């Protein structure tokens, strides 16, 4: 911009110089032409006056010739005529002289001298007739001849005497004329010289201007080249925004790479980010850009509230998909005389540093969670932990078997998902009971993924890949936990070599050879596990209740897993949904501390397992409402259900009264799993409730499956 202004000035100067040259040349030409015309006239006059100078001498000679011829009586007629012609010519020429160019005094003087000739010459010229008398003895001058002779002689004498004077007078006239002509010629020369000099000077000036302009242009071009190089090489995307929040005509090449487009000129800032960021982020960004033009926008303040300092954008990855990147926008206001002129934007791709920071944070969190895990394990019974690890390993092995089963149809995939859900859910339950939160959180995340898959239509094998990866991670983590447990055990039990350092593989009611299908999972001390879970649930959810366990020792080995899974699930439900907060219980005139009972007993034929809590109970209406909300049944179906059928809704897959998912509730995988497990063993489950007073689950299991569970 700043170059083109001076360039225009330079061009104007050069044009001015050229015009001056032309004007000088025209002036010189006009003046020169006039001088030349004058000189030409002078030269003509000079020629004429020069020719006049010869006349006095010629007249004098002719008079002499006339006298001699008269003296020798020769023929005089032609000499007389010549003289007459000469006089006549002289007369005419002298009077025809242009006085304008001559010194008038000199001319007048010459004329006066010539006038003196007239009385002398007139009688000579007036003579006519024959001057001789011819006789037989010879010829002689006649009387008139003699007179003629005398007049010729006198005229000759006069002419001889006056010719030099007249000649010199005429010479003076022509000399004056010559001097004037020379002066004019000299003026012409000077004029031409001056003109040429002026033109030369002006041409020099123009050349200098042109040169400096070329130099300036070269400098401008170089500066432009440098700017272009900078814009081409710099790694940030640079551009200017105008007062309409539109991108200017120049931007760095990095911007093209960052946004995968090159049509930035005049593009509104909003359009640059549209479809790449969520709508509310875009709205905030636009508001922020507008604020930059305001008076209150100080650089530091605006920097501190920049909502685009780390902006996650979704970009085309060039392969038809989208990828997430992090961009950093910096804004600098460019001030002009009338306030903010432009806003300079610098955009950088900070994806790698953001990811690195996240990795660091993750690593830190991992370290923290390992520490938490270790502290948790220090408090937990290593025997229980190791039993859990065995059980979880067995569960995951089962998961692996499920995943490997061939599946093609959507139905088969969904069956896989259901199996996955059940296993994951029970592993999570046990892990949280043992406060192994790092494990529980990982399983929770896996459950999220499975839930997402369940919501998807048209499942394919590829959809399961991320789950498999996560499962691998979980396995690795469990291995880590096992290692740490081993170390803790060796720490607690003294140096290795005493025979107790190896991990005990505890099994209650040791099952012999597991039957085909699902392997028998190792179990932990069920009572302690449930007590621990109850304590954790109470503190997590701010509830207070007492857990009474009866007859758990009676649980036969084949039912241990199922009873444990069911008990964990029901205990969780009771703590989250059943038992009310203390104040609520107080207002309802119930004891502040809740009561949860779990009883297992042998019957004549089979076993009975009762789970009882004195919490809020189940409201058939609330259950129906929740089932409709979760799309488990339609509103019409709900209306048709009686209270009993409404209570049975809790055994439907996907049912939950919770709208948000937490670690302990809301997924809707719970009572359906309990029911399924019970049915799987050939048992029955029933629920009875009194809203506001209690909920009771009664499970009966046949005697037949007591030795080992059937898948």
């Amino acid at each position: 911009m700043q170059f083109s202004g001076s360039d225009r000035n330079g061009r104007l100067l050069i044009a001015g110089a050229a015009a001056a040259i032309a004007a000088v040349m025209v002036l010189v030409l006009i003046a020169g032409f006039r001088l030349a015309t004058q000189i030409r006239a002078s030269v003509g006059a000079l020629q004429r006056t020069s020719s006049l100078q010869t006349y006095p001498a010629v007249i004098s000679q002719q008079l002499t010739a006339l006298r001699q011829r008269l003296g020798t009586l020769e023929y005089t007629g032609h000499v007389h005529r010549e003289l007459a012609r000469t006089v006549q010519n002289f007369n005419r020429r002298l009077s025809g002289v242009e006085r304008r160019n001559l010194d008038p005094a000199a001319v007048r003087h010459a004329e006066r001298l010539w006038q003196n000739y007239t009385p002398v010459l007139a009688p000579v010229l007036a003579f006519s007739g024959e001057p001789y008398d011819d006789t037989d003895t010879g010829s002689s001058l006649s009387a008139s001849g003699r007179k003629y002779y005398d007049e010729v002689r006198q005229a000759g004498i006069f002419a001889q005497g006056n010719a030099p004077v007249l000649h010199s007078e005429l010479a003076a006239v022509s000399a004056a004329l010559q001097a004037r002509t020379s002066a004019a010629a000299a003026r012409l020369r000077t004029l031409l010289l001056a003109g040429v000099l002026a033109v030369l000077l002006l041409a020099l000036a123009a050349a200098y201007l042109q040169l400096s302009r070329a130099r300036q242009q070269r400098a401008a071009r170089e500066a432009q080249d440098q700017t272009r190089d900078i814009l081409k090489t710099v790694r940030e995307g640079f551009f200017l925004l105008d007062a309409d929040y539109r991108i200017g005509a120049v931007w760095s090449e990095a911007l093209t790479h960052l946004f995968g487009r090159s049509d930035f000129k005049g593009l509104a800032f909003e359009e640059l980010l549209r479809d790449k960021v969520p709508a509310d982020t875009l709205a905030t960004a636009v508001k922020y850009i507008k604020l930059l033009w305001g008076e209150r926008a100080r650089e530091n303040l605006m920097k501190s509230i920049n909502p685009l300092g780390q902006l996650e954008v979704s970009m085309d990855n060039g392969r038809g998909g989208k990828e997430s990147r992090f961009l950093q926008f910096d804004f600098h206001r460019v001030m002009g005389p009338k306030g903010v002129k432009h806003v300079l934007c610098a955009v950088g791709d900070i994806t790698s540093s953001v990811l690195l920071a996240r990795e660091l944070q993750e690593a830190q969190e991992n370290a923290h969670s390992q520490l938490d895990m270790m502290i948790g394990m220090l408090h937990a019974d290593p025997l229980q932990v190791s039993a859990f690890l065995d059980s979880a390993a067995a569960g995951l092995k089962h998961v692996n078997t499920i995943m490997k089963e061939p599946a093609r149809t959507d139905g088969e995939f969904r069956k896989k998902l259901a199996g996955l859900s059940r296993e994951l859910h029970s592993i999570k339950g046990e892990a949280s009971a043992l406060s192994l939160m790092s494990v529980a959180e990982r399983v929770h995340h896996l459950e999220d993924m499975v839930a997402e898959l369940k919501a998807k239509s048209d499942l394919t094998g590829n959809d399961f890949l991320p789950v498999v990866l996560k499962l691998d991670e979980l396995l690795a983590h469990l291995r880590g936990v096992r290692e740490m447990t081993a170390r803790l055990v060796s720490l607690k039990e003294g140096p290795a070599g005493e025979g107790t350092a190896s991990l005990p593989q505890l099994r209650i009611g040791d099952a012999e050879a597991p039957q085909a299908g699902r392997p028998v999972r190792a179990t932990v001390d069920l009572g302690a596990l449930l007590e621990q879970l109850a304590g954790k649930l109470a503190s997590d959810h701010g509830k207070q209740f007492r857990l009474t366990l009866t007859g758990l020792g009676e649980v036969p080995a084949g039912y241990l897993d199922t009873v444990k899974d069911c008990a964990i699930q029901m205990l969780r439900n009771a703590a989250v949904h059943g038992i009310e907060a203390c104040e609520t219980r107080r207002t309802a005139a119930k004891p502040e501390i809740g009561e949860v009972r779990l009883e297992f007993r042998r019957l004549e034929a089979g076993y009975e397992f009762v789970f009882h809590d004195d919490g809020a109970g189940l409201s058939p209406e609330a259950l129906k409402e929740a089932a409709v909300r979760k799309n488990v049944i339609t509103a019409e179906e709900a209306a048709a259900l009686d209270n009993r059928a409404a209570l049975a809704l809790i055994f439907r897959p996907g049912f939950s009264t919770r709208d948000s998912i937490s670690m302990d509730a809301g997924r809707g995988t719970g009572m359906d799993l309990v029911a399924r497990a019970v049915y799987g063993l050939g048992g029955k489950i029933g629920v009875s409730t009194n809203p506001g007073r209690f909920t009771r689950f009664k499970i009966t299991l046949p005697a037949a499956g007591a030795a080992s569970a059937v898948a």
Partner: protein
Amino acid sequence: MGAAESSGRRQFRLLIVDDSNIMRRRIERSQRFEELEVVGTAGDGLEALELARRTDPDLVTMDLTMPQMDGIECISRLIAMKPSLRILVISALSDKATAVQAMEQGANGFLHKPFTDRQLNDAIAELIS
């Protein structure tokens, strides 16, 4: 700190708005400007409006999350009442959208909680300069 003895030098009237009593006292005690006179402290937006009407402050420090009326609305009402008012938002909210919104409503500065005395004084200095 008698207001009367040095009131000649005090050109700015400061109103402190924050729902935390501790934070109000902290701001009041930490500011080191002789030209500032604290004319009132308010615990929520409505009280702030009422106090502003009575005390006609030049400068307000404003919390954003408050009961009754939140900071954003309070800012826009205060600015409507007195456009020349300078408002320093002091908030724990870290999302930039809220800050941008506050600026849009007319705030002049933004300070994140927690802050040091120096940060507070720098922020106030920028506002009264």
